[in-house]
């Protein structure tokens, strides 16, 4: 589904990703862990199409498409979703209305008809329950005045509404209390199918107790330096990142 080859990315002249490789197949859950400054958020941003990031070399293939060639909205239409580490507050733009526009623009991109109002409302109701989003939050302005936990839940709600092929969760767990974490993880797990894939980017092993990964990758200084099963996350939790860096030297 997603194939990243030798990706090199710089921000303001500073090289952040230094030849990153990653293969994600349908039905898989991947976790990317790493210390601060290792390039985790840069990876999420560059995949979503943020402009300030310069791709110096490498390729990103998303189901046969050169993803780096696509605008952010085209990536979304192709089935990519990024849950933001810091979801943006947008006063005056209603959550529901913008999702309706998003769904219909994605459909138009695929040459499909608009979604019927009835079907849309049914989906809203269904997905709201999935992330236990309070009624009024769905219809309010995007993230405006939401608590940290509500913002993250709203990310998963949007993900549920858009039904992406590949979801990237950028530090979705950071700053969440245990109840919110459970709700968010539960939502992600229930959305998992054989056809879609999830990449969880996190600093803490805690999230992986709830979202169990098939693969754990360690990102360090812009490269994936180690890949293993879920037990690698536990090892990292226990020993920290130091042993890895020493091992590499």
């Amino acid at each position: 589904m997603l194939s990243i080859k030798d990706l090199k990315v710089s921000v303001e002249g500073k090289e952040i990703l230094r030849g990153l490789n990653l293969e994600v197949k349908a039905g898989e859950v991947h976790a990317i862990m790493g210390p601060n400054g290792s390039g985790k958020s840069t990876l999420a941003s560059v995949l979503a199409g943020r402009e300030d990031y310069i791709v110096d070399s490498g390729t990103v293939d998303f189901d046969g498409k050169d993803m780096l060639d696509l605008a952010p909205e085209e990536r979304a239409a192709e089935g990519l979703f990024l849950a933001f580490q810091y979801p943006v507050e947008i006063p005056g733009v209603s959550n529901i209305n913008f999702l309706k526009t998003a769904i219909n623009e994605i459909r138009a991109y695929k040459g499909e008809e608009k979604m019927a109002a009835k079907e849309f409302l049914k989906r809203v109701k269904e997905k709201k329950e999935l992330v236990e989003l309070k009624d009024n939050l769905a219809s309010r302005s995007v993230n405006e005045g939401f608590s940290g936990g509500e913002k993250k839940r709203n990310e998963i709600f949007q993900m549920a509404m858009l039904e992406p092929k590949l979801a990237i969760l950028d530090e979705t767990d950071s700053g969440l209390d245990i109840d919110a974490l459970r709700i968010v993880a539960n939502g992600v797990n229930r959305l998992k199918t054989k056809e879609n894939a999830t990449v969880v980017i996190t600093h803490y092993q805690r999230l992986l107790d709830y979202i169990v990964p098939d693969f754990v990758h360690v990102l360090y200084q812009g490269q994936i330096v180690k890949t293993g099963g879920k037990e690698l996350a536990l090892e990292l939790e226990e020993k920290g990142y130091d042993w890895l860096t020493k091992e590499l030297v």
Partner: protein
Amino acid sequence: MEAVIDKKELFLEQFRVSEGLSGESIAAQKALHNLDFPSTRDEYWKYTRLTKIQNSRFSLEESTEDIAIESINEDAAHLNCINGFFRELIGELPEGVSITPLEQVNTSLIEYQHEFFAALNTAYFTSGIKITVDSGVVMEKALQLNFANSASNLQAQPRVEIKVAKNASAQFILNFQNHGNTGNFWNVVSEMKVAQNAELNIHQLQQGGDENFLVNTTTVQQKRDSRFAIHTICLEGKILRNNLNIAVEGENCETKLNGVYLASGSEHFDNHTYVDHIAPNCNSSENYKGIIDDKATAVFNGKVMVQPDAQKINAFQSNQNILLSDDATINSKPELEIYADDVLCSHGSTTGQLDEEAVFYLRTRGVSEISAKKMMIRAFVFEVLEEIKLESFRTHIEDLIDEKFKV
């Protein structure tokens, strides 16, 4: 100095009429003789250069041609003013509402002794009407006045008097439309009197074409317990200037001034407002929001005056702007002048850019860049639009705002 006077005289020459003036028009003609043509040296016109108007020549043409004008509120009555001349009413007026031609100006709220364009209209208005809403009458539908041209390079100086009697409730749409003409100069003067416990709601839509000039002077007088609200939507104009002056003369009044201006290309929009609190126990609130693109310029100058006897006034004023381009300009000046000691007044002005992070966020959800920016623009002006109670007008301008920017 000689050259300046000559230019003004040459400008005035084209308006002079052969028939003798009557009423206050005579006094206004004298005032014009003593007044200079406004320039950026005048504080009142500091950011708006009018040389393009001064150097242009306009003719007068009373056309009988039919002009198609869209209805904003479906089945309500319309009155068209073409090239500055009012025509017959289309539709029916509610009982208790009457329109009569204004033959001459006798007494006026308009301060023209120091105001060039007000004096010009008072002296040489092309056509005028007086609308009276009798006491206790409630206008369920808004009467729509349309201002349009059938040709180019014309002058049009209509004059409107609206009188809302005691306990009455009135609403109007003033719709300035463009029909593909250029070089037209509109100099409109309106006088609105809101009597005791009466209500008046004005909805102005200004889209008279980006090659035409509009100077629009509105003077309002509020008596005690009255409510006045005005919504001004500026969408098109080469030079567009609104002078809105409200005298709150009675106690316990509500005054609302809302504005949205969207300037692009090389348009120049200027909104000057003045709220004069003369009596105590009144509320006024003003909220203007602007979006400026390309090389366009906008000016906002809002002044709130609280006179010594006007205690217990709540006056709120806000002006917010978004610049969409590096070449766009805004001159924003909110002003408060307070001579009473027991008042609650606030004012503020902000200028910024469209939140790029929010645009990116929306795009990652599959919303195209243009739709995302339109959403953000809508969101920005929403606060002003939601104050508009006349729904047909609100939805009409929401659509127009969407169309204005091809962002």
